[in-house]
């Protein structure tokens, strides 16, 4: 899925389509799990809404105040996991990590914040199933989007 995505060196039509019309963007009023991943340094966040039918992810939405890389990755990832089970979604994260290996460190952080928000939404669902009164589950990011430039990286 990510073979054609080479941002910012050369933008594919698929990436551009996700930029212009992000998929599954917004809020889900009747979500079973709501997760937030927060980069405390930049205040960038991703909020992830998940609606489950047993193990199947029936509906999913996300929103962010972050950069366009976060939007594109969130849009692609939500398309990938929708109507699949949670086990597939966990594997999809690992699979996408491999594909995203080609991206810059900053873009890796953008991908991680999306995946972390998704995991937080599952944790929120699990906590509520166990009787917790938790509006949403918050996970703070270890790595910040403010990644120092790598040696030899294009100035």
């Amino acid at each position, binding site marked *: 899925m990510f073979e054609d995505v080479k*941002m*910012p*060196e*050369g*933008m594919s*039509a698929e990436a*551009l389509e996700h*930029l*212009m*019309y*992000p998929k599954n*963007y*917004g*809020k889900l009023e009747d979500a079973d799990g709501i997760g*937030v991943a927060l980069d405390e340094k930049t*205040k960038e*966040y991703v*909020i992830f809404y998940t609606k489950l039918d047993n193990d199947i992810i029936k509906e999913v939405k996300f*929103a*962010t*105040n972050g*950069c*366009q890389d976060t*939007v594109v990755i969130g849009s692609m990832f939500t398309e990938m996991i929708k109507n699949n089970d949670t086990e597939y979604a966990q594997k999809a994260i690992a699979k996408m990590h491999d594909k995203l290996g080609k991206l810059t460190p900053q873009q890796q952080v953008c991908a991680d914040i999306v995946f972390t928000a998704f995991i937080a939404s599952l944790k929120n669902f699990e906590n509520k199933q166990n009787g917790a009164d938790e509006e949403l589950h918050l996970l703070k990011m270890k790595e910040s989007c403010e990644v120092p430039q790598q040696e030899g990286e294009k100035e």
Partner: protein
Amino acid sequence: MIDKTYQKKHELWLSILFASFAIEDEAVKSRLYDFSQITFRHMKWLAKEILQNGNDYNYDRDMMLLKRENTFDIIEALSEELQAFLPHYPANALGERMKTDDAYLQTYLQEVLRDPKNNKVITAFNMERKYEDLDQAQIDALTLFLFDESYKEYELILIYSYMQARTKDLLQFDIYQDLIDESHFHLKSFGNMMAQLGILALPRELHEMTYIVKDLDQFIKDGIDEEIAAKEMCKELSDAINDEKLSKFFDFINYQENYHIELMKKLLK
């Protein structure tokens, strides 16, 4: 209670604004931009009234910017949206004002539709991404910049408006107004550029986590950091782009950010 009239007005503002970006004819573009500014003022007055009545509003949206192929498709869709707003006018002075403004816009739209010469091909959504003599790498950099910054300007317009509607401090009110006006100009510049590149798209919806500010000082400090980052992005883009006119434009935007920082510092206690 959340007032849905505000949401409709917000959507109408974006429809008029983005119609003005999409249409190339300078006369129609300019007229529609003026109307979008009037509609934005409707939003401001409506917000005040909603809060005075003890209700609330949010920035939820339920709209899409469809890829229209000609001017008349855009104008006809706008005309229908105006018509659909009719049942939402409040029965008071503000409602009357909005109604007469919108009726005049409707008259103008019908006037445009009467002349077939006005029906031109729309290239704002064709995704061709051609701009003067820029090469592909420069176009890619410009594309990402425009998506990031058009969202950011839209975000700032709405956040500052949200705070302006709630402040009782005249100095703060005045500074928010300046910052909103500045962001309108930037959004207009970036929106028209996106249309020229064939990548015109709505900025994404704002989540309440973005616009409900709990700590104003921290928000302003973060905002100053963002302005500094935006300045850096403008400078990088200006240096990277081999187009004198465009480079000068991004330098000009960069210098404007300096003054925004000064305005924002005044908001700090």
